[in-house]
């Protein structure tokens, strides 16, 4: 038996994972299920065909409130993210990024307007730094609270709605990126209709003490299987979604990363609240004039999966590396290898053929649109 080093954290679903016979691995300081007996491939396909339950309790849940009301709170957060937070309506959610002074990305996050504050979900590996950063950067009237007494589950897939509605009937009325608080039998569920798989589905924050009970009820349903981190990664890769620390980091700007859609008009040049976030100078100029490189979808032409770090070249012979793969692997639903990576803008057009060097061989790769598989959000 593998001797996991101590001081790894456990989520409220740790015992549930063991009972489900999960293979546990260290991930972002937590002992997490990488797969269950079904295996990565079948877990992936099951999520796309029915519904998959993910434990994402390792992610950071942070509540921001202000003594000066929502407008002051939203404007305070806008000083750290290039996102229209003020325009985020109650019970709605939006994707965001924390930018740094050089226009890179410190973390990506989800922002919900709860009516009385802003609820953030941040990456597990970044959460300690994010919370310290929020505390250090936000004005005194903003109160930053890490929510440590709630678990976070994700239920994803075309049958997620029918499954979750058995426990919380109101979820059937939610649309993509709605984010609400629903009380059932005195328990407050914080539910958003969003996720990280390209499927319709929900992210569900519930009191930690109820997490295993809810997880057991869900996996007891015919539609639902527990899904590990392995399939979570292949699902988000097919959906063309960025993984922080891999596809985006402190050196990639949002324009380079091709996530400029996360920067609403009001924060861009000429907008009512133009700039005013870290790295605005570079990011606003790239929004107008473009960046030198761009994150693109890549389809290896052969069968060999191409993983993170694989170098890219313009031709089969050229000596100079032009970019590299930042995420890649086999896509079980598209039944072929898929990848994403950064390329010079001049070579980033869909259909462009470039080459990857794999085990000393140059293999052709085609630049392709993402997602690799059409997403099925319920808008």
């Amino acid at each position, binding site marked *: 038996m593998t001797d996991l080093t101590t001081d790894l954290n456990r989520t409220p679903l740790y015992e549930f994972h063991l009972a489900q016979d999960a293979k546990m691995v260290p991930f972002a300081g937590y002992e997490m299920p*990488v797969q269950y007996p079904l*295996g*990565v491939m079948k877990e992936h396909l099951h999520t796309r065909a029915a519904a998959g339950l993910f434990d994402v309790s390792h992610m950071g849940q942070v509540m921001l409130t202000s003594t000066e009301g929502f407008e002051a709170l939203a404007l305070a957060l806008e000083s750290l993210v290039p996102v229209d937070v003020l325009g985020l309506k109650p019970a709605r959610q939006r994707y965001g990024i924390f930018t740094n002074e050089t226009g890179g990305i410190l973390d990506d996050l989800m922002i919900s307007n709860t009516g009385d504050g802003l609820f953030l979900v941040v990456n597990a590996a970044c959460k300690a730094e994010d919370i310290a950063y929020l505390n250090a950067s936000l004005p005194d009237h903003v109160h930053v609270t890490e929510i440590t007494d709630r678990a976070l589950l994700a239920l994803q897939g075309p049958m997620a709605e029918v499954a979750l509605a058995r426990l919380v009937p109101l979820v059937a009325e939610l649309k993509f990126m709605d984010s609400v608080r629903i009380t059932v039998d005195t328990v407050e569920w914080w539910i958003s209709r969003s996720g990280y798989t390209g499927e319709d589905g929900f992210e569900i924050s519930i009191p930690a003490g109820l997490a295993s009970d809810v997880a057991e009820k869900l996996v007891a349903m015919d539609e639902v299987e527990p899904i590990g981190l392995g399939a979570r990664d292949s699902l988000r890769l097919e959906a063309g979604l960025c993984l922080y620390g891999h596809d985006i980091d402190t050196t990639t700007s949002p324009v380079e990363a091709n996530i400029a859609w996360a920067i609403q008009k009001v924060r861009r040049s000429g907008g009512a609240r133009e700039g005013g976030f870290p790295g605005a100078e570079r990011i606003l100029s790239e929004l107008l004039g473009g960046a030198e490189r761009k994150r693109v979808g890549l389809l290896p032409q052969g*069968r*060999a*999966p191409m993983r993170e770090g694989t170098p890219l070249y313009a031709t089969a012979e050229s000596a100079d590396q032009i970019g590299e793969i930042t995420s890649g692997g*086999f896509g079980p639903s598209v039944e072929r290898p898929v990848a994403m990576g950064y390329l010079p803008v001049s070579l980033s057009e869909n259909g462009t053929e470039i080459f990857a060097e794999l085990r000393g061989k140059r293999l052709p790769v085609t630049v392709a649109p993402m997602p690799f598989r059409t997403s099925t959000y319920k808008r």
Partner: protein
Amino acid sequence: MAADIKFTEEHEWLRVEDDLVVVGITEHAAEQLGDVVFVELPEEGTTVSKDDEVVVIESVKAASDILAPLDGEIVEVNSPLADDPGKVGEDPMGDAWFFKMKIEDMSALDDFMSEAEYKDFIG
């Protein structure tokens, strides 16, 4: 016939078939790998040295290499496997062999583990 099968610490099995050694991976290794999605086989006729990387296997999770267990020549490869890599998970000890090699001295096989020794090795 069980005496004719040997196991390496790299979780390969070696089975003597006429004057050739057939090489594949064990059920234990296949289980650890998970769903295999890609197999790259060497060319027939390649001369290999012990520990050369001769086969690339990729599962959904990761890539791994199969090393040549001994010096010798690859005389036959299981070409259909490249088109049906999933077979590695289904029948690792049978249909999903990787290659057959010719070695100088069959007695070199004596250094590898027996089935019972391998079972102890994987605990």
